[in-house]
């Protein structure tokens, strides 16, 4: 009798606990915009940061040798490319001055390592090992040597969460490098991104390259996003259906750079985690990113000259 009533009590207690926690979860989901996510993430990152860092460190040890060989090969190729680009860069600078164009904003690059990816297949976000301590703030654009990765959506003291292109909430204003046709890059499931809001019969072809247009104020103009892989026109629709393959391979991504706008220096700086050891790098993002490879090459070139 006593055993049975105890069992019933526990059953009832569990049920009401479940109901209360479920309501709490639903409320969190509904009012997530009003929650102090930085505080919530701060707590969990304090607990999980050491574990994640250890796992990432161990994982990286196995990659160092392979990565070293890959990078040595890449540096050799890039060195040749740099010599060719140096002249073009000079010419570009002179021409800009001749045309009286306003000098473009310069940026700092904060190198960060990826320490985690949010679980689940859909709407992935990435956790990086740079936070408020390194000068990273919300809405800062994030790039890799191949092109645009996303933007920062949450920051804690040591870590930040970034919203990648493969997220339903990611909308990026883009422009076609060849025809200057504009649209919005979004992800709607599947392997490829979609370029939306492009009117029918616009001049967009397969293999065209898409860059950020600079509209919206988050992403600076001229960062490479991806290339067009599919163009569909239907007379029933008023817009074209365009498939985009991003330049960045998100499954192989290990390191990223957070872009922060420079206020005073005309140079682009790479800030190491210890900001006092900032490496000065002469890099104009808009002039050097003529293609995704150039971005990496300019970066490496400047690093090598240090």
């Amino acid at each position, binding site marked *: 009798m006593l055993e049975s009533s105890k069992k019933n009590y526990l059953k009832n207690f569990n049920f009401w606990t479940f109901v209360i926690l479920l309501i709490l*979860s639903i409320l*969190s989901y509904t009012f997530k915009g009003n929650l102090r996510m930085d505080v919530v993430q701060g707590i969990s990152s304090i607990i999980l940061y050491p574990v994640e860092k250890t796992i990432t460190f161990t994982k990286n040890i196995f990659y160092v040798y392979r990565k070293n060989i890959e990078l040595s090969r890449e540096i050799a190729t890039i060195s040749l490319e740099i010599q060719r680009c140096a002249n073009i860069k000079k010419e570009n600078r002179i021409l800009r001055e001749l045309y009286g164009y306003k000098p473009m904003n310069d940026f700092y690059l904060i190198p960060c390592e990826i320490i*985690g*990816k*949010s*679980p689940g297949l*859909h709407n992935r976000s990435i956790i990086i090992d740079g936070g408020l301590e390194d000068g990273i703030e919300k809405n800062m654009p994030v790039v890799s040597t191949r092109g645009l990765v996303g933007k920062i959506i949450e920051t804690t003291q040591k870590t930040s969460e970034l919203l990648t292109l493969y997220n339903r909430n990611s909308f990026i204003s883009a422009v076609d490098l060849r025809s200057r046709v504009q649209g919005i890059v979004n992800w709607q499931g*599947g392997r490829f991104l979609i370029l939306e809001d492009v009117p029918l019969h616009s001049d967009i072809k397969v293999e065209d390259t898409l860059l950020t247009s600079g509209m919206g104020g988050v992403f600076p103009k001229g960062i490479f996003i991806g290339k067009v892989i599919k163009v569909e026109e239907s007379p029933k629709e008023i817009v074209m259906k365009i498939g985009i393959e991003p330049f960045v391979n998100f499954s192989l991504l290990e390191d990223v750079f957070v872009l922060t706008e420079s206020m005073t220096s005309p140079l682009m700086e790479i800030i190491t985690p210890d900001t006092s050891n900032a490496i000065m790098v002469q890099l104009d993002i808009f002039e050097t990113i003529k293609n995704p490879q150039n971005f990496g090459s300019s970066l490496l070139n400047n690093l090598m000259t240090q």
Partner: protein
Amino acid sequence: MRVTLVFLLMFIFVALQISLSPLISIKEIAPNLILIFVFFIAFSFGQTYGIWTGFFSGFLCDTFNSTYFGLNMALFLIIGFIIGTLKVKFYRDNLFIQVIIFAITLLLYEIIYTILLWQFSVGIFFVNILRYSIPQVFYSTLISLFIFSLLRKIPLFATNH
């Protein structure tokens, strides 16, 4: 003692899922380690453990994806509660049954998650289910076989403990 171990393992599983999933993923499909753990705990120790492990695992999971904060918290909680209730109805020593129920649970989780995320866009829903969810169910189920066997070896998690 068991509670401490469950909490410790929960943190390890969440950290492993976040840090290791890119490493063990095949064509961008990674096993859902957190769900494997929540399922194991709920199936082995019942409702009370299921509810709290589900809730806290979901919470930790959601802190790394703030755009959908609360979604995993609710889904893992529901799974913890339901599987915890089912515990008494199945013979928990049968690994085969455990794995079958896990595969069904994961498939249902994937379907509900996709419906909530894509808000009933039929085309995208089916593409995601076929392209991601079903392969993930197979992959996770395979991994769960190994994890379940491993977790059963822990003396505190043994049946007769």
